[in-house]
């Protein structure tokens, strides 16, 4: 193993490990405040998630959306942009996919209908991503604030359209799509019966691989990372920083938008108000813990999905809200330890002054 690779690996792995330790200790305290035994509760948490097919299916289902939103946030960060808008990009993607699925003929074969719906989801998300990109490049408006504000605007707009135009009476969701549904895993593997896991997980993994190739093996990805590290130097080197930022926000939005297929095409077959349910914000946590690397994002998405599903498994003993506290603790601990670990490691590696 080359020493540079090892240095990168250490810088990437230490913060999440520190965070896990801190979270375990906080978890212990919370569990004991409820008069329960931490060992029992943690065992239940693992058994309810990785210990049986249904629980594992739910973990896969929850991880799928998080892989998309985590990749979305990571790609933007690699270009030096903080996309806090994955939540509304996800919702818009699911919404447009549902619209297209509603408009297609039920006789259309999946091989045609599914790609059309995927494209629709990506376009829906990329439109919402393009707005902050354009406002940043054209007017210098900071993307963090614009994406936060746009979340509220887009979600309110979608709620209005669904409530006023196309909802099924007495519900907050659209009618079921007529074509473009993605098969559930339990139709191949009966053990997954009842869980929402579906083949979107494969599309998520393919997207992760594609993001890896794009970022680390293509010229455009190299330019994007150069802009993320040193925008002035990249501009001087002949790269159009504005163009790259625009591209990054469109791609980031498209990936978050694709996440909408997991719920809309794979699980419920309709768009429902509020289906994103914070998965866009959790995507920031996934990107952070996954150190903005596609492989790290997949692992971090599984981790956060395990926590979220694990909350349900322990609910009889400790309120499931415990895992929400732990999510917050993990994010804080990773955010705090990243600069600290980097400094400590660099200090330790420095050759002793002669």
């Amino acid at each position, binding site marked *: 193993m080359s020493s540079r690779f090892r240095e990168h690996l250490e810088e990437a792995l230490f913060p999440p490990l520190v965070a896990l330790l801190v979270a375990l200790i906080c978890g212990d305290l919370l569990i004991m405040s409820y008069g329960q035994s931490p060992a029992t509760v943690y065992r239940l948490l693992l058994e309810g998630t990785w210990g049986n097919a249904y629980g594992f299916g739910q973990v896969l289902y929850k991880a799928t959306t998080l892989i998309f939103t985590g990749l979305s946030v990571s790609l933007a960060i690699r270009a030096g942009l903080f996309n806090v808008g994955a939540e509304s990009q996800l919702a818009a993607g699911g919404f447009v996919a549902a619209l297209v699925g509603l408009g297609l003929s039920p006789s259309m074969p999946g091989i045609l209908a599914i790609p059309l719906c995927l494209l629709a989801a990506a376009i829906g998300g990329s439109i919402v991503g393009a707005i902050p990109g354009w406002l940043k490049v054209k007017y210098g408006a900071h993307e963090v604030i614009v994406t936060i*504000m746009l979340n509220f605007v887009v979600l309110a707009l979608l709620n209005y359209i669904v409530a006023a135009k196309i909802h099924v009476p007495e519900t907050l969701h659209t009618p079921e799509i007529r074509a473009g549904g993605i098969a559930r895993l339990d139709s191949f593997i009966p053990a997954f019966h009842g869980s929402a896991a579906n083949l979107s997980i494969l599309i998520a993994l393919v997207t992760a691989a594609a993001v890896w190739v794009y970022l680390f093996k293509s010229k455009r990805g190299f330019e994007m990372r150069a802009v993320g590290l040193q925008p002035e130097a990249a501009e001087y080197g002949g790269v159009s920083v504005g163009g790259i930022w625009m591209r990054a926000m469109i791609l980031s939005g498209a990936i978050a938008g694709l996440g909408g297929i997991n719920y809309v095409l794979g699980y419920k077959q309709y768009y429902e108000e509020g289906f994103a349910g914070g998965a866009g914000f959790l995507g920031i946590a996934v990107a952070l813990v996954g150190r903005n690397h596609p492989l790290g994002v997949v692992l971090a998405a599984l981790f956060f999905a395990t926590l979220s599903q694990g909350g349900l498994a322990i609910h009889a003993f400790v309120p499931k809200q415990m895992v929400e506290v732990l999510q917050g603790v993990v994010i804080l601990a990773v955010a705090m330890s990243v*600069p600290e670990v980097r400094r400590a490691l660099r200090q330790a590696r420095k050759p002793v002054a002669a």
Partner: protein
Amino acid sequence: MNPFDFLTQTIRIAIPYLFAASGGVIAERAGIITLSLEGYMLSGAFAATLGVHYTGSPWIGLLTGIFGGLVFGLIQAVASIRYRANQVVVGIAINLLAIGVTRFFLKLAFDSSSNSPRVAGLGGNSAWYGFDNPLLWMGLLVAPALGFILYKTPFGLRVRAVGEHPDAAASLGIKVSLIQYISVALSGMLAALGGVFLALDQHQFTDQMTAGRGFIAVAAVIFGRWDPVRAALACLLFAAAETLQIQLQGNQFIPSQFVEMIPYLLTIIALAGVVGRAVPPAALGKAAE
């Protein structure tokens, strides 16, 4: 529509925004990005409810509420100043943490996943339209007071110096980190008062009762260009739009979702510089070395 009702309702709706936006202004003027106002408000509301529930005194609740905001403010301060964590991430983490912590302890203390029992409040004589509540008056005075502190006192000068030119401030002997710690702690306590007002006004804590008000306050800070009084005017403007929507309800004049968008759309437009550019403090988000 009665203009008197309109005015009093606008003010009552604006009070939580006024507290939280003032908290946002002081921390951001000291250079710390503050997206955690929502979390401060929520923890303030919950801690206040606990305080009133166990002592029966709304005044003790006021103090415990401020303390709740202080705790989360100090988490933000330690993470962003001592550990130089990304301030946007810290803000988002604090909001998640506040939701989780209040839900967990709501279950632990009151065995409920939705709301606390009824607690005593301040004021409440209906003939006064809410103006017999001392917290309401505090809310109206907080922005002018903060404006005075920021522009007329040595401490305020230091806060502004730290947020604009931390290196220059440090070279003049100002303790940059100390000023930032104080500003962020004040920010947590001020925003928490917004939550305290909500909880005492509704006589209970309900899950996620701040419902995005912290983000409206963030919008007001930016729309008010990081100035306490202009941010307060933005709060009143946003509250007036809400009041209009409530009073026109059933009228189907404008769908409520479009009224909800107003603060956020105005802020985006302000950021894009269509009507006068919103320029943040120069060192906002850059942790001092």
